[in-house]
């Protein structure tokens, strides 16, 4: 009978179900264990730094005054990157999903995805060989005309290897992440919402503003947060592009440093306490990234209820 057949099928499927749920559970546990193991490793290796004599820490004034400038530098670089990449990324995604002709959209989407596959050392090399020298005249203009604003205080760097250049390179690197994710979200906007808006006489922009963007908001936030994660942790590109130095407000002078680049630059020759300092810096970056992700989760969770994305 039909019920029998169903039950038999059900019992057959139960084994597969169990295996699958077991595998999924295993994967979930594995990622937690990995995260936990990384945290433990960082903590153990970093411990000597916290108990060491503050005079022995690089800079001679303890770990906090060592780490503070590079935390701020990291935030500045990532901030510049997001400031540039977020509007551009969303605009490109909207263009692909709602404006471009189908053929062009396919090609453009492919190119954007390709950007994500370029190794960061290539971005770094491009940044310091091509972009930085090209930006020197712009920086000089900024220093001359807008020098009264602290972030553009001169004299401008002669090499163009500044935190602003690093931020721009980072922006190019996070652009594909923000664009790809946003595009996927925009494409998932219920067609009915869009058509309803258009039927009410909305222009295309109004339709996007009324139906697509509100629907996509949590998705955009998580795309930006993912991009921020990459910008915060990016090592090689910043290490190559940035002319490092102490914390300064000017974005067009050489100076500032990010945690990831600080680790990359000093790790190869570090040992003993210096090594543990660098790992402690890594721990700080880990905590920052974790905090950023938690905040993003909270934002997404709050917006979900209003948008209908669930």
């Amino acid at each position, binding site marked *: 009978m039909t019920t029998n057949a169903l039950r038999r099928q059900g019992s057959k499927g139960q084994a597969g179900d169990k295996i699958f749920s077991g595998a999924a559970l295993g994967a979930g546990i594995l990622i937690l264990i990995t995260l936990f193991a990384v945290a433990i490793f960082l903590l153990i290796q970093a411990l000597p730094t916290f108990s060491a004599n503050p005079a022995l820490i690089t*800079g001679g004034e303890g770990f906090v005054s060592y780490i503070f400038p590079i935390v701020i530098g990291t935030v500045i670089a990532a901030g510049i990157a997001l400031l540039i990449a977020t509007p551009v990324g969303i605009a490109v995604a909207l263009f692909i999903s709602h404006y471009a002709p189908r053929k062009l959209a*396919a090609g453009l*989407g*492919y190119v*954007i*995805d*390709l950007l*994500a*596959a370029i*190794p960061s050392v290539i971005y770094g090399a491009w940044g*310091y*060989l091509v972009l*930085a*020298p090209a930006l020197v005249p712009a920086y000089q203009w900024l220093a001359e005309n807008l020098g009264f604003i602290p972030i553009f205080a001169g004299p401008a*760097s*002669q*090499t163009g*290897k500044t935190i602003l250049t690093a931020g721009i390179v980072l922006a190019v690197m996070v652009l*594909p992440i923000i664009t*790809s994710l946003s595009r*996927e979200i925009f494409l998932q906007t219920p067609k009915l919402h869009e058509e309803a808006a258009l039927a009410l006489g909305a222009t295309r922009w109004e339709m996007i503003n009324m139906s697509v963007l509100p629907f996509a908001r949590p998705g955009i936030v998580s795309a930006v947060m993912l991009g921020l994660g990459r910008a915060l942790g990016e090592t090689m590109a910043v*290490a*190559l592009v*940035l*002319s*490092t*130095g*102490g914390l300064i407000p000017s974005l067009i002078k*050489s*100076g500032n440093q990010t945690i990831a680049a600080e680790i990359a*630059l*000093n790790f*190869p*020759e*570090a*040992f*003993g306490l210096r090594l543990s300092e660098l790992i402690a810096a890594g721990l700080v970056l880990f905590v920052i990234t974790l905090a950023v992700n938690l905040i993003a989760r909270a934002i997404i969770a709050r917006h979900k209820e209003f948008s209908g994305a669930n």
Partner: protein
Amino acid sequence: MKLNRIGSAAAVLTVAALALTACGSDSPTASAGTGASATGATSGAVSGTLTGSGASSQKSAMEAWKAGFEAANAGTMVQYSPDGSGAGRKAFLAGGAQFAGSDAYLKDAEIEASKQVCGPEGAFNVPAYVSPIAVAFNLPGVESLNLDAPTIAKIFKLEITKWNDPAIAAGNPGVTLPDTAITVVHRNDESGTTENFVDYLAAAAKDVWTYDVSGDWPKELASENAKGTSGVVATTTGTEGAITYADHSAVGKLGTVNVKVGSDYTKISSEAAAKAVEAATPVAGRGTLDMSLDLKRDSTEAGTYPIILVSYHVFCSTYKDQSTVDLVKAFGEYVLSDAGQKEAATSAGNAPLSAKMSEAATKSVESIKVGS
């Protein structure tokens, strides 16, 4: 989604490639201490795997040595991980490497510690790699400049800020110096090149250069910087009026500084660098085998080029078994031999050791023997 898949496939490939390369550089330490697989006690024929670790400055020279040595001695393998001098010395002292490459010789305390793995006579250093460090600048039309140590120190200390400064002009009659600002470019990663360069400044211009000597550029001096030798050279090449210091073999078309030694200016060259090594004095209070050198940075002997990097090989004076001893000796002697030094000079562009120096170093290596 379809579009995304292509992108993610590419990303997966990239990650896989990265993972593979990572494995490549990891393996050397895995087989540490597997040097004892000699098939017979026949002298001369060596085989097995020699594991070393240390200075990245020796990397390209080491590749040449490895290739030359393995070609001459079938059945041998040399593995060297360029993890940095400090890491190399640490691995050596912990018994994880049979020799270390280091930009600084073992300190007394480290020699003491080495007795744990090397037996009662401890470890010793021999110079193996000498590289002149050029002070290189980018001024179109100017190929070389004569500068004395205090002037170089003042430039890098940002006290002299224009190329047409009287202090620079004084040693260079006939050279048209532009009114360009000087942009100092230094290494932003910790490096033996930095350490040797500032050591020179601190010794030869002690009134001007009052900073600590270390592999990190003094934090007080905020100027342009870049990662690695290639980074500083590229940045200097791209910036008119920039000046930096880098391995001589890497400076390309940049102008170089002739350094004032005594009353003359010495042009940078392998010969002048080798001469400076020869003029160095052995560090006092060391064992008979040890060849650690105190470089006379403030030497006044004409024809020597004082800004050099000397990188050492650190060996144990005794190893546990004959096959390891044979292997270490064969490799150490090859490195110091005329052929080995020339091989390295061809591929790394460094300065070969002088005949006298390599003879003395070879004697030290020859005395490595079996011990408990």
